[in-house]
């Protein structure tokens, strides 16, 4: 009986692999300028699945810790604050771009340098985390508006 339950749980979990629908493209990390010990990463996310999914956390094995932040301009002041969960309906997009949302990364294992390819991880409410390549760039690719 117990093993049957385990199998059922596995099946249910398997069916709820919500991160499966998550597509992340154009991920990149800005090479931190000298003297700066925090880094910011950007990406485009899209839900290609049939069900709503929720991104609950971001991280990288190349850094000690990470947080999803949003920069807002309030009365002309740039204000950086943690961003909550990101809920994506089927077909919905979320864009983290300079001057807006970003993954803030603290304490790199080694200083990120242009040419390195690191790893960005996104955790969803259900399912396996998604890991994508995170190239280190000097500046935003020109296609991304500043």
């Amino acid at each position, binding site marked *: 009986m117990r093993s049957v339950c385990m199998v059922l749980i596995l099946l249910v979990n398997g069916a709820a692999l919500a991160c499966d629908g998550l597509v992340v493209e154009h991920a990149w990390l800005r090479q931190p300028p000298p003297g700066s010990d925090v*880094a910011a990463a950007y990406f485009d996310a899209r839900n290609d699945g049939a069900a709503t999914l929720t991104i609950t956390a971001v991280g990288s094995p190349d850094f000690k810790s990470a947080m999803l932040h949003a920069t807002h301009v309030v009365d002309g002041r740039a204000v950086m604050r943690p961003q909550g969960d990101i809920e994506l309906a089927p077909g919905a997009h979320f864009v983290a771009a300079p001057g807006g949302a970003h993954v803030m990364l603290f304490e790199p294992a080694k200083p990120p340098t242009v040419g390195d390819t690191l790893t960005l991880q996104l955790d969803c409410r259900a399912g396996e985390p998604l890991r994508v390549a995170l190239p280190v760039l000097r500046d935003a690719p020109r296609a991304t508006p500043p």
Partner: protein
Amino acid sequence: MILIAGMAFAAGIGLSWWHNRDTEGAPIDGLLWPDPPAVPEIALTRDDGTPFKLADLRGKWTLMFFGFTHCPDVCPTTLDLLAQVHTVLKKTPPYGTQGQVVFVSVDPERDTPAQLAQYVHYFHKDFIGVTGADSDLKPLTQALGVLFMKVAQGGPDYTVDHSAGIFFIDPAGRLVSVLTPPHTADAVIARFKAVSAFILGKS
């Protein structure tokens, strides 16, 4: 947890005041005319450790931006953009011979002059980093209407909310325009050309 550390170095004036100003006789969007605020005498420190005073603004066209080196998003994004702007504007007068980009760190606790030098020169070798004690920054930030505030991020870390505008200071040391974000290099260049032509026409 976000806690307001309560360290507000608020200038008396909000950043939105110039939107409401009497712009009669000011054909250029965002031009602070006819009463551009004057920068008072200042006693700040340049990234090479030497003093930075009002005299360092006189006779120059200055693009000024406020931030701090532990700012991973807005500061590098804006400084990269200012590097593009600086490179383009350097090709023609009046900026060509008299133009400068000044990055003012509002986090003197963490940003030493040496650290600022490394930081600003990463974006452009011509850039000037400037900082000073909170009490020394105040005359400048107050005159320009710049607001900044330390915000704890949990633990010893903190971030600094800061003005994201690009401030144009003319060779007479007057704040003649402020660009509000989101910035584009083309918009900064166009605004600079229009504002500098207007000011030169007046003098």
